[in-house]
């Protein structure tokens, strides 16, 4: 094999591997985000752990994203072009598949940037953009299913299904927790979601019986 071909193979391998890691990371970030919001967590874990992990992993994700994108662009055997890093559906090579990836980066990038500037933007603006995460993830999944060549490998399929199952469960939990804001939509630390319970009644009775 020529050096260029070997180099290209190496780049392609790193791109695929980092892509898979990205999918797993992204899925974990989404699940952590939902866990932090709904408070559905193992009793001993404080909620701030989920928020901090959610943030940390999301930032970590950027490193892998850079790797994934750079190795794909720099690979001489496929013509994707630098523009495709931010503009969706302009790649010569597999326009739709790569375009989905670019779209996922655009959406995820918006979520990330607004989160970094959260204080300056204020809560409402930040939250409005953050909902895009629920759009970014399926776009990323669609990209991984169409752009990746590895669906023949059994454990890649397992990982894809695993991520999809985890995120689907998280989304279901989020929907069931309701999308209310305002007092009463949070939960006391370490308790199951109080979305459908009259917190006052429960707490008053609990306080009374603990005399």
């Amino acid at each position, binding site marked *: 094999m020529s050096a260029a071909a070997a180099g290209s193979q190496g780049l392609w391998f790193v791109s695929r591997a980092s892509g898979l890691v990205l999918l797993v990371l992204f899925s974990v970030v989404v699940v952590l985000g939902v866990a932090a919001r709904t408070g559905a967590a193992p009793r001993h874990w404080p909620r701030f752990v989920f928020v901090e992990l959610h943030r940390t992993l999301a930032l970590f994700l950027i490193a892998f994203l850079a790797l994934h994108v750079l190795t794909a662009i720099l690979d001489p055997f496929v013509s994707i072009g630098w523009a495709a890093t931010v503009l969706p559906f302009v790649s010569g090579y597999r326009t739709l598949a790569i375009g989905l990836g670019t779209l996922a980066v655009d959406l995820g990038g918006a979520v990330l940037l607004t989160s970094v500037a959260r204080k300056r933007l204020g809560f409402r603006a930040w939250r409005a953009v953050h909902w895009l995460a629920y759009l970014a993830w399926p776009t990323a999944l669609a990209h991984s299913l169409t752009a990746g060549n590895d669906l023949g490998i059994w454990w890649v399929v397992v990982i894809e299904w695993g991520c999809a199952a985890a995120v689907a469960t998280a989304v279901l939990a989020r929907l069931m927790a309701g999308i209310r804001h*305002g*007092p*009463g939509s949070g939960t006391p630390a370490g308790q199951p979601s109080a979305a459908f319970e009259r*917190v*006052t009644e429960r*707490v*008053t009775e609990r*306080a*009374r019986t603990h*005399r």
Partner: protein
Amino acid sequence: MTRGTDSRRPRAGQAADQLPRLLPADSGTGSSGLADHIDRYGPLRSAGLSRQRREALIDEVDRSGLTGRGGAGFPAARKLAAVAAGHAPIVVANGTEGEPASCKDKVLLARSPQLVLDGAVLAAEIAGASQAVIVVHHSVREVVDAAAAERTQAGADRVRIRVMTAADRFVAGEASAVVHWIEDGVPTPTRKPPRISERGLGGRPTLVHNVETLAHLALIARYGASWFRAVGTPAEPGSMLVTILGAVNQPCVCEIAIGTSLQEALGLAGGASARPQALLLGGYYGSWVDMAAAQAMPFSSEGLAFLGAGPGAGLIAALPQDACGLAETARVVRYLADESARQCGPCLFGLDAIARELQRLAEGRTSDLSLLRRWLGQAGGRGACSHPDGAAGLVRSALDVFKPELGQHAQGWCRGTRTANVLPVPPRRQP
């Protein structure tokens, strides 16, 4: 006569120590038209004040010692100066009076609307505002509309007057809630910072004054600080409107000099119909006081401080012997809890729990006083407005003054034999 005021001596009928000042002397129900108003008080030149004149007027108000008559008692001159320092301010005359037991603002607007409008326009001129919004209870909307129309026709005002009907909610009378109501039609308090004196209505510095405060302002501008101080106490000068109801022969709104004894005030309402057991002073954010301890006391902050009470929004409610103070308070607190703006957890949940526990106490069911006290302790300073603080203060004073009733209820009986309620509470809204 000091510089900076309209140099017109008060007419014979408006001597310095004569009351009433704000309300007409007769006990009718009509309002005085613009001509009669000028006849009684004299004209007030407020359009086109020079900067010197405006500063002199703020000085005069400062020297008069006028404080807000909406319940908070903040020095009026300071508020004026703060807003006057801002750019493109606006004035709001607050006649919402969300307190169901208090009628003084409604009566003032019904009987002396021109005086209030005088004050609103004057405040606007002093602060450099081009507009004054006056927010009034629906029952007096027509009267105020007519009064504003008369002024427009007379054409003496440079300031534009806009009349609005107030929202019919308890917390709607809070300053930021009024601004929120005018701007967005939502009568709920807003977060501070920013203060409304810096950024309020439309982002402009906003001066919100109770309508009674503005009425006093209109007279201080005419007759001066010394005239204003001729009644009242040195520390709390001037007169104030009070609503007297409950076990009195003629419930009414009267104007008294600050520092008048409670006994005398009750006399203005025809005297107590039977010797009351206790008085509720200030309003539904106020405090109960034992009748024996209070009747000789002056109605002023100073005079009532040691009883843990204050003049507040000017309510004096007499509780008759055959009523139960705990039951009355429980009813009021249930209303206050229902009237929460529901924006802050400590109020939404805390007041509701306090209301329920107090209801259990009042009904003689098993209740937990220590739990109630814990919740009362958590109610203060944790909301966007002072609604939970005020309600908690009322409950604390009830637990104090009606301590014997606590013991009676624990034993399963109650002194309350009357069927009619004493303190007015609007019917419960459908959730």
